[in-house]
């Protein structure tokens, strides 16, 4: 016995799973297509999510950084009207209120030495400021500044040496400052650096900005609730105490809908990818049916087979997720510019953010990649576990099973569609529910694609046979016969094409609605705004000179500012206009009303439908606004269509504005010209006015409209990238599965060649077959895309932004969707056709 055991192999015998994995690995090496497709699908799906996540988070991080720079550890802020606060309020808070943790701040946008780009100049009181920023983000290197006039501190990343000078300009004001020190972040975290900021003593800032005795705001670090009450009791009616946490989250919240829309699109990419993972896994199982049956015959249990396939799928998930994270990070460097630009345009100015990939994002991306792969691969792997020794099956069995399945899925698809409609129809404002509804709405009809393709082929085949002969008919029959291979890829393609079409139709409808609104709203011939940083106002002299210009029939003025009312942050627009200009407001409620006279009544306001929809306001409601006299109720006399702000706009007459708010001047003017007057001549005359600001934007009606549409288009660039990414996933998947299918048919092609099919005929048949598959997917995508577009317009946009729009169906977009689907599928046939062309018949017959 002892001698026997000594001859036993010392190496641990391979387990059943290891042996199976070796078998599968060898097979993968021989034919890596499906494995690569699955990995690629996970990769692109994860990349879309990571790309958007990193870009959005990094952009917002920049917003938070800027807020931290300005607010430090302050919990509250006292703000005044548009011209700031009297500095005596600060003294009162410290002396009467005994509040030590207070810091006065004056802030302005400035330029350095007329270089492009603007900086934020903070004027602070170093003696009190440390109390609200004591361990915070803004620290100063205190040199001996007493002898330096006009000192300024620059970020430590700046190369300007201490002692050098720089000229700051704000509006028409200019001043030479001397670099007195550096501002740096104590924690040393690079993302917390002070780039974009300049700091000086508040005294110098007040003098430079011409605001002696005024403060921009007062930052406070308040403790218990009682301190807030103390502050509020000491404030005049023109000043308000705001909670910074609430303000920052309100600002961040403004971008919520935008970020949710992007996240939904990126998750849709993963959903499409999941179809392809399912498709490639099912393909693997189908291809291995005989192998698995043989393995079962040898003695492997179903559990062992499932385990080995599970390990293989885990490798796909992990490899795809890792590659997806890397690709996503690369994509985000491109996406962040688009996201930042869109947030800049729609919400608030963001600086240039740096990309950050947090551990949380890594875990989320990996979890989604693994979970998506597991869900998508579970069904085919379960099927593999059911393969019996006897099931060295025929393909027709498999195909007929798929045909049965395509029929059986119909009730589930109908249920999915109905659930989607129900979720969208609920009165809830939840965007999450709306997107869940959209996904179900899409999934339902898309799942019917194989069944529809099957029946379309049944109808088409005889007709094609009669019209073009058996060779053409064979192409149609082949599509039907290989649904087990192509069905899911076709679902993914129609899902992606319909999504792309739906979003494109929505954007197109939106674009046309905005164009229509602009045409209606913009009635003046020339629009004038100040381009001077820190000085957006047009002086009274300039206003009166504009009105007296030759060829100017009338002038309208407006002022727009951001306020924080009980409804949160929103814009306030005061208009000094005439009945012609007022008719530019597209009044939606009450319909057809002429509100000109009522608009000029005391405390009357118009609100945009975005504000009304978001807060469920109706005509006749009172809206409380913070005014010089404290909180005053204004009556909503009308609701109008406006696309300039998603977080809402309250519009009031100039009379009401002057009565209730401070008036530092208007920010834009609209000139109505006499008929026959040349706008370029008037432009030139405006520039030559003595009182004209140093820098001025004067745009004609057409220029401003074009610019607005250009801005509109830019805000949808990021959406376009995601749309195309989704389509790319689907097309890649379809191309791979068509290639795999065609390669699997090498033997069949050899038989056809042997019978007498020429290579040209076969190549044409392959391309016709793949093109027809794409055409059918494209045709099926049309009604789904239209439904999606309608849902986006009627539900998602209203819930996201409060905007309504007129639905428009551009036939060109429909044709483009069909064309894209057909061409991409046709492209999937090119490689197999080339391969077929070069494969000797004898090889194919030998393979058989």
């Amino acid at each position, binding site marked *: 016995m002892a001698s026997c055991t000594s001859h036993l192999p010392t190496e641990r015998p391979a387990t059943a799973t290891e042996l199976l994995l070796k078998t599968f690995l060898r097979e993968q090496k021989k034919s890596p297509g499906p494995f690569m497709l699955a990995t690629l699908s996970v990769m692109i799906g994860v990349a879309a999510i990571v790309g958007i996540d990193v870009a959005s988070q990094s952009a917002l991080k920049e917003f938070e950084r800027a807020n931290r720079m300005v607010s430090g550890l302050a919990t509250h802020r006292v703000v005044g009207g548009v011209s700031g606060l009297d500095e005596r309020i600060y003294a009162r808070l410290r002396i009467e209120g005994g509040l030590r943790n207070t810091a006065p701040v004056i802030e302005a946008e400035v330029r350095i030495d007329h270089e492009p780009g603007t900086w934020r100049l903070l004027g602070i009181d170093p003696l009190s400021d440390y109390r609200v920023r004591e361990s915070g983000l803004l620290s100063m290197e205190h040199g001996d500044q007493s002898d330096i006039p006009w000192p300024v501190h620059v970020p430590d990343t700046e190369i300007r040496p201490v002692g050098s000078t720089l000229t700051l300009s704000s509006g028409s004001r200019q001043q030479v400052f001397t670099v007195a020190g550096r501002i740096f972040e104590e924690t040393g975290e690079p993302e917390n650096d002070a780039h974009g900021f300049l700091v000086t003593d508040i005294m110098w800032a007040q003098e430079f900005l011409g605001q002696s005795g005024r403060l921009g705001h007062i930052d406070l670090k308040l403790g218990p609730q009682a301190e807030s009450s103390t502050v509020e009791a000491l404030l005049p009616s023109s000043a308000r105490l705001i909670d910074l946490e609430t303000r920052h989250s309100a600002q961040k919240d403004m971008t919520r809908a935008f970020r949710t829309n992007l996240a939904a699109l990126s998750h849709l990419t993963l959903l499409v990818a999941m179809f392809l993972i399912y498709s490639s896994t099912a393909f693997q199982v189908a291809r291995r049916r005989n192998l698995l049956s043989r393995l079962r015959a040898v003695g492997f249990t179903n559990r062992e087979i499932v385990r080995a396939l599970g390990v293989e799928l885990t490798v796909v998930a992990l490899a795809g997720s890792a590659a997806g994270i890397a690709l996503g990070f690369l994509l985000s460097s491109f996406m962040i510019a688009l996201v930042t630009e869109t947030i800049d345009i729609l919400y608030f100015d963001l600086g240039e953010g740096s990309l950050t990939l947090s551990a949380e994002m890594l875990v989320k991306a990996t979890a989604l990649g693994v979970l998506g792969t597991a869900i998508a691969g579970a069904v085919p792997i379960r099927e593999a576990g059911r393969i019996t020794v006897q099931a060295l099956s*025929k*393909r*027709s069995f498999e195909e007929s099973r798929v045909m049965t399945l395509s029929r059986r899925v119909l009730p589930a698809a109908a249920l999915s569609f109905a659930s989607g409609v129900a979720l969208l129809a609920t009165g809830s404002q939840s965007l999450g529910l709306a997107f869940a509804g959209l996904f179900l709405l899409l999934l339902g009809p898309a799942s019917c694609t194989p069944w529809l393709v099957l029946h379309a082929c049944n109808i088409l085949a005889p007709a094609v046979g009669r019209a073009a*002969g*058996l*060779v053409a*008919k*064979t192409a149609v*029959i*082949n599509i*039907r*016969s290989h649904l087990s291979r192509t069905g899911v890829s076709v679902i993914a393609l129609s899902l992606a094409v319909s999504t792309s079409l739906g979003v494109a139709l929505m954007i197109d409808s939106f674009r046309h609605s905005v164009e229509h609104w602009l045409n209606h709203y913009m009635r003046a011939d020339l629009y004038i705004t100040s381009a001077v940083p820190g000085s957006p106002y047009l002086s009274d002299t300039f206003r009166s000179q504009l009105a007296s210009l030759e060829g100017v029939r009338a002038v309208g003025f407006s002022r727009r500012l951001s306020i924080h009312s009980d409804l949160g942050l929103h814009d306030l627009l005061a208009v000094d206009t005439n009945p012609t200009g007022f008719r530019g407001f597209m009044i939606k409620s009450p319909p057809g009303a002429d509100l000109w006279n009522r608009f000029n009544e005391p405390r009357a306001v118009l609100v945009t439908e975005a504000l009304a929809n978001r807060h469920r306001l109706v005509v006749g409601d009172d809206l409380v606004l913070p005014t010089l006299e404290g909180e005053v109720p204004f009556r909503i006399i009308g609701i109008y269509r406006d696309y300039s702000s998603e977080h809402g706009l309250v519009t009031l007459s100039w009379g009401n504005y002057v009565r209730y708010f401070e008036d530092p001047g208007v920010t834009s003017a609209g000139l109505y010209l006499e008929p026959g007057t040349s706008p370029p001549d008037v432009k030139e005359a405006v520039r030559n006015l003595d009182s004209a600001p140093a820098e001025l934007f004067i745009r004609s009606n057409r220029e401003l409209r074009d610019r607005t549409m250009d801005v509109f288009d830019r805000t949808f660039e990021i959406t376009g990238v995601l749309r195309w990414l989704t389509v790319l996933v689907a097309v890649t998947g379809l191309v791979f599965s068509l290639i795999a299918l065609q390669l699997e048919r090498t033997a*069949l092609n050899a*038989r*056809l*060649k*042997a*019978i*007498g*099919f*020429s*290579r*040209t005929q076969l190549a044409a048949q392959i391309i016709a077959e793949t093109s027809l598959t794409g055409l059918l997917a494209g045709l099926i995508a049309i009604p789904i895309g239209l439904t999606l577009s309608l849902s986006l317009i009627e539900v998602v946009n209203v819930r996201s932004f409060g905007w309504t729009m007129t639905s428009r169906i551009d036939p060109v977009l429909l044709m483009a969707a069909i064309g894209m689907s057909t061409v991409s599928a046709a492209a999937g046939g090119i490689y197999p056709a080339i391969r077929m062309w070069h494969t*000797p*018949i*004898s090889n194919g*017959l030998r393979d*058989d």
Partner: protein
Amino acid sequence: MSGRNHRDEAVAVMSRVIREFDDAGTVRRVLDELDFTATGGSLVAITGPSGSGKSTLLHLLGGIDVPNSGRITVSNTDLTGLNETDRTLFRRRHIGLVFQFFNLIPTLSVIDNLRLPLELCGLESDDSVIMPWLERFHLQNQASCFPDLLSGGEQQRVAVIRATIHRPTLILADEPTGNLDESQGRIVLELVRTVADEGTCVIMATHSRSASECADRHYRLSDGKLHESSPD
């Protein structure tokens, strides 16, 4: 019903044909200056051990493969002088192929499988042309069936009809009974015999003794050359 009559004419001629394969760097000569002639109306059986080159010989005659040197003529057309497309067009019209594993097109019904060569040749392909063939070989009830619902014998009969229906001058059958039981094999051989009797030249590679026995001439392929032999 079948065959343009080329009885006793030399339909397939191979002259000094050499076919070599590069087998992992080693050149393996499968056919070595092989000469062979088959006439219309004859059934020729070629036997030989596995790997001796029977299938290669049939592939060369069918224009599926090309020799390294030598000349192959079918119905007075030099196949070695044709390019791939021309060989395909020639095969389509003049040659029918029968394989061991039937090689019917699984996605087409029996009647469509038979329609295929007719359409490729631009011949009349109505049911009225095909049904008599099916009736003659007792397959009329299977006309609309798909191949995998047929027995092996039925599939091979369909394959023989498909190779014959467009009336080629040469039919090449590679182990036509290799995958069938004895009784089914016999039916297929009778069918092949009938086709040859009607004037078509049939060359059959086989391991089967019964298949050899029904042939008019017997060759054994060994060492790259054909040796005329008896059915044993």
